[in-house]
């Protein structure tokens, strides 16, 4: 482990207490790392977007050889291997979930697979779900997952960029969240069940590209962040069956400067809890519960790509009342932020030579 030996006082917004921390590089040489999962033995699994799953041992050493048995992925631009998430009974079953892009440049979309990890490799892989229709291009896949307390999981999806109007079409999976049982079946109480024109897996619609998801067990809230276009990145509280408006409503404009819609909000659609305009390009998201940083208890942490930072969102009764910009000194696109079982924050930098970084208290 290489210490950066940087002692930092985090940049502050008005009214916030100092939060001193130190950044430690746990592993380097990761190619566009996308997500990580903490293993019960203290190790970590890290996905690399080109399609590799890497194992970081409990002592912090990055295994040279990738984990064998990862499904074939479509790796191009934003496409590739996305999230790794352990099953709730992983300690007994060894089961984990992987989200990834599958197909080719003319026909692809996000899939969800499950396999058994024995500490060395994956076996018994099965595909539980693939979003449809297959679409052209290599943009906007979503790919994040969260477990709900009723033994279901929610998978985030994207609109495929060129298909933005399809986010309003419940007859496909583009621009939506889907909810599945842990073995991939459709839960009996999914909100769109009973609508013959809608896909039964849908949990919410009207999203653009959902890149972060967190379930807050204390507030019983499912929260997501999603990329807006130029401006209009959003934090949303998910209600089953709700429509979040994209592309009929957004606070952003197209990358060309063109208006995507005249409407920022409309009564028919659930508005965001907050939006970031100009964009920060939110990526991962974590809810802090731990002992290492008592001041951060219950706060949300949103990693950002274009913003090259992590936003700490301070909440009061679920409402975001303040924000703090963290870790800008890294000068890196940050793909994911997690809270480890040790109470430390873990960051993944989104570069061809990306790193896994641990945030620990300064003292």
């Amino acid at each position: 482990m290489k210490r950066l030996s940087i002692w930092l006082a985090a940049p502050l917004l008005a009214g916030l207490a100092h939060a001193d921390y130190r950044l430690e590089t746990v592993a380097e040489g990761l190619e566009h790392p996308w997500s990580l999962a903490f293993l019960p033995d203290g190790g970590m699994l890290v996905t690399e977007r080109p399609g590799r799953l890497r194992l970081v041992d409990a002592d912090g050493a990055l295994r040279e050889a990738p984990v064998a048995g990862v499904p074939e992925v479509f790796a191009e631009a934003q496409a590739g291997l996305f999230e790794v998430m352990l099953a709730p009974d992983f300690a007994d079953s060894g089961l984990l979930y992987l989200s990834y892009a599958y197909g080719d440049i003319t026909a692809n979309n996000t899939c969800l697979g499950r396999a058994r990890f024995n500490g060395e490799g994956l076996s018994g892989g099965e595909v539980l779900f693939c979003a449809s229709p297959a679409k052209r291009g290599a943009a906007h896949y979503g790919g994040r997952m969260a477990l709900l307390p009723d033994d279901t999981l929610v998978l985030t999806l994207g609109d495929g960029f060129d298909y933005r109007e399809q986010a309003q079409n419940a007859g496909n999976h583009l621009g939506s969240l889907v909810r599945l049982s842990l073995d991939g079946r459709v839960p009996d109480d999914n909100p769109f069940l009973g609508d013959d024109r809608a896909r039964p897996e849908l949990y919410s619609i009207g999203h653009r590209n959902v890149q972060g998801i967190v379930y807050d067990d204390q507030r019983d809230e499912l929260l997501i962040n999603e990329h807006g276009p130029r401006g209009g990145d959003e934090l949303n509280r998910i209600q089953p069956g709700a429509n979040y408006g994209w592309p009929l409503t957004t606070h952003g404009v197209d990358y060309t400067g063109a208006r995507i819609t005249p409407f920022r909000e409309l009564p028919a659609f659930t508005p965001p809890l907050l939006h970031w305009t100009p964009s920060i390009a939110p990526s991962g998201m974590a809810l802090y519960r731990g002992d290492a940083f008592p001041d951060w208890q219950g706060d949300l942490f949103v990693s950002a790509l274009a913003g090259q930072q992590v936003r700490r969102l301070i909440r009061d009764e679920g409402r975001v009342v303040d924000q703090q910009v963290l870790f800008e000194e890294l000068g890196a696109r940050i793909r994911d932020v997690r809270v480890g079982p040790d109470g430390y924050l873990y960051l993944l930098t989104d570069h061809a030579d990306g790193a896994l970084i641990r945030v620990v208290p300064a003292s």
Partner: protein
Amino acid sequence: MGFVLALLVTTLSGSLIQTQFNLAALAALGAEISLSTRLTTSLQDLLGFAPLYAGMVVLSLAASIPLAALSRRWLALPPALLYPLAAALGLWLALLVADTLAPMPTLIAATRSLSGTLAMLGGAALGGLVYACCRAGRTS
């Protein structure tokens, strides 16, 4: 002067056209687009979209108009046909290059469909026609 007018006509018509295509896509989803909303959005796009689009149009016209003039040695097309055709082809090429270079599949949303692309090319052809008319006025 003819080049500047062609640039203005192509840019302004293209901006207005892409606005209408984007609004039509929203209307197809059930959005109510009032006349005032349409006018406001069109104006916003003239301020927000047209400057970037003008850059693309400048490059395409700077290549297509001289090439069209040069091709008159071999092509016996009247200028009122040749320059619109060249301007439209030039823009089409510019759109292809932009979509290849830009990280997103399609840079200008209105050109995701064939009808939208043809309408934008129609705006370029109009610009080419204006250039041909200016040129004819200058030489007559």
